[in-house]
């Protein structure tokens, strides 16, 4: 076990950890945190934890066992404990990538949050959430919004509280080299998220909003084969389905016995917040065109001050 024990703040939680988390805001505290992250034995086989949810995952009520082969095994319990056991001589950066992704997402779900898979940026006094499949352009959009002066609230893991507000996440954007090049962001001084991938961590500093923000609209970013943008409001069951489909690691929710609550949360959010599908050209799309379209749409909803 590591000797260090440091405290951080993330998603409004106090986290005490024996692995350094340079991505997070340090926090000095003597009392125990809400969440404990520590290295410890995690069974090699997740069968004893609960039924199999995937080739490398098992779940039971308020528990998730996850293995990223060659990186680490993780056990997340009761919304308060995250135990990790690295495999082989893997680097700490790699162990952290999945810890601050799937694991923290599962932990937030265990704590009762609806967690969306998307990026959140500030607009007016509120925020907009952009969801969509992997490769849809969420990160590029967030990075460009940042360049256009909008503070970022969350990147990738977006928990929503009971009042329909997005809870601030890690003060960073994960950026691919290709995106950075297109947006003329110099990556020379940035850390790679893992040694073997040209994906960088851009610290947000003042461009991070650390307070929760009411969600004005949710956009489902969808690449298509036409060379123009279109935006279309969703209604009825389609809104609910879009929220469910873009929930973070939907696969694990049922196994953790969180299905019924998640269903109610999606239904409530769908009733309260507009959801629109934004179609964008699959190739060579004009990022500022997309930003303008979304900002104009938000202005039309009275969300831009």
């Amino acid at each position, binding site marked *: 076990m590591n000797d260090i024990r440091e405290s951080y703040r993330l998603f409004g939680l106090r986290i005490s950890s024996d692995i350094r988390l340079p991505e997070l805001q340090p926090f000095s505290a003597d009392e125990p945190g809400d969440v404990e992250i520590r290295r410890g034995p995690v069974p090699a086989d997740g069968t004893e934890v609960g039924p*199999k*949810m*995937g*080739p*490398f*995952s098992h779940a039971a009520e308020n528990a998730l066992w*996850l293995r*990223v*082969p*060659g990186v680490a095994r993780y056990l997340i319990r009761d919304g308060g404990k995250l135990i990790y056991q690295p495999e082989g001589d893997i680097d700490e950066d790699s162990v952290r*990538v*999945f810890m601050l*992704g*799937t694991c923290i997402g599962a932990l937030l779900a265990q704590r009762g949050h609806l967690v969306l898979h998307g990026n959140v940026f500030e607009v007016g006094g509120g925020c907009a959430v952009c969801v969509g*499949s*992997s*490769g*849809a352009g969420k*990160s590029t959009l967030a990075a460009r919004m940042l360049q256009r002066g909008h503070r970022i609230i969350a990147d990738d893991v977006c928990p929503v509280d009971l009042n329909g507000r997005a809870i601030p996440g890690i003060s960073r954007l994960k950026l*691919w*080299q*290709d*995106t950075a090049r297109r947006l003329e962001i110099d990556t020379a001084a940035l850390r790679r*998220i*893992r040694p*073997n*991938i*040209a*994906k960088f961590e851009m610290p947000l500093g003042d461009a991070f909003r650390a307070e929760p923000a009411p969600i004005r609209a949710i956009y489902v970013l969808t*690449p*298509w*084969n*036409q060379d123009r943008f279109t935006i279309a409001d969703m209604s009825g069951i389609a809104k609910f389905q879009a929220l469910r489909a873009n929930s973070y*690691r*939907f*696969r*694990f929710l049922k196994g953790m016995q969180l299905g019924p609550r998640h269903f109610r949360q999606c239904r409530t959010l769908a009733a309260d917040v507009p959801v629109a599908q934004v179609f964008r*050209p*699959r*190739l*060579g799309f004009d990022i500022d065109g997309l930003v303008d379209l979304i900002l104009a749409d938000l202005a039309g909803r009275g969300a831009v001050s």
Partner: protein
Amino acid sequence: MTARLFWLASYPKSGNTWLRAFISNLTGERDVPASINDLGAGGLASSRGWLDDVLGFDTADLDRGEIARLRPAVYGFASERRRSFGYHKVHDACHRVDGRQWVVNAGATAGALYLIRNPLDVAISYANHGDCSIDEAIAMMEDPEHRLARDDGEQLKSQVEQRLLTWSDHVRSWVDNPEIRTHVIRYEDMKTDTHLAFSAAARFLRLPTHPQDIARALAFSAFDKLKAQEDEEPFRERDPRSPRFFRKGVAGDWQTTLTGAQIDSIVAAHGAVMERFGYLDAAGSPKVM
């Protein structure tokens, strides 16, 4: 493990989409043709969304080698969870990952329907699909390192990297695979002996084979129907660099499109496999079909 996955395997531009349209119309109950943008027939083997969903963590945080090593486990799990057969398009060559498991997981595989098309015609169609010259397409088909959605580790693509090997090795990797049962269909036979070729495919894939069902599915997936649909709405599987996906859909286009040197180059590289599948005559010259 119960093997529930059927692979619809081919080098690109060899009739795979036509076959999937046929399957979709054969299994569907609708009285209108299935949409080309909703060819139900399972996800693509290389779909990042499918892999991420089953794995429960992002392949975007893995390198190309790590992703390739995890793919067999994803298909193994997908097969385990199915109660009926699933049909998935795959363009990868059937190679082993890390010299061990087959990328598609032989234990999860009920069979592979392999579509082969005259490489002389593939070259033309592939050039059109990738918006490159025919000479470049010919070079790609000879390149053992050729990959689709090549992973340079610098950007995110909606599909993970697929190794194709050379055109000849792609064919051999599937049809000579020691552990996977394959059924080979020639694109040219799909064009000329349509009913027979598709009936055999349906039988191999454990799908309905009643002649009336086959005829209906074929009518709904006829090339001109697919092409007309693309005129109406863009096809999502079209390469954005290419003006259209369904182009000519003919066999023998090479006779009027390729130069003598291009024909010679393809025959020199792929003659052995071309001969084996009836694309060369006794003198070793390309057969006019």
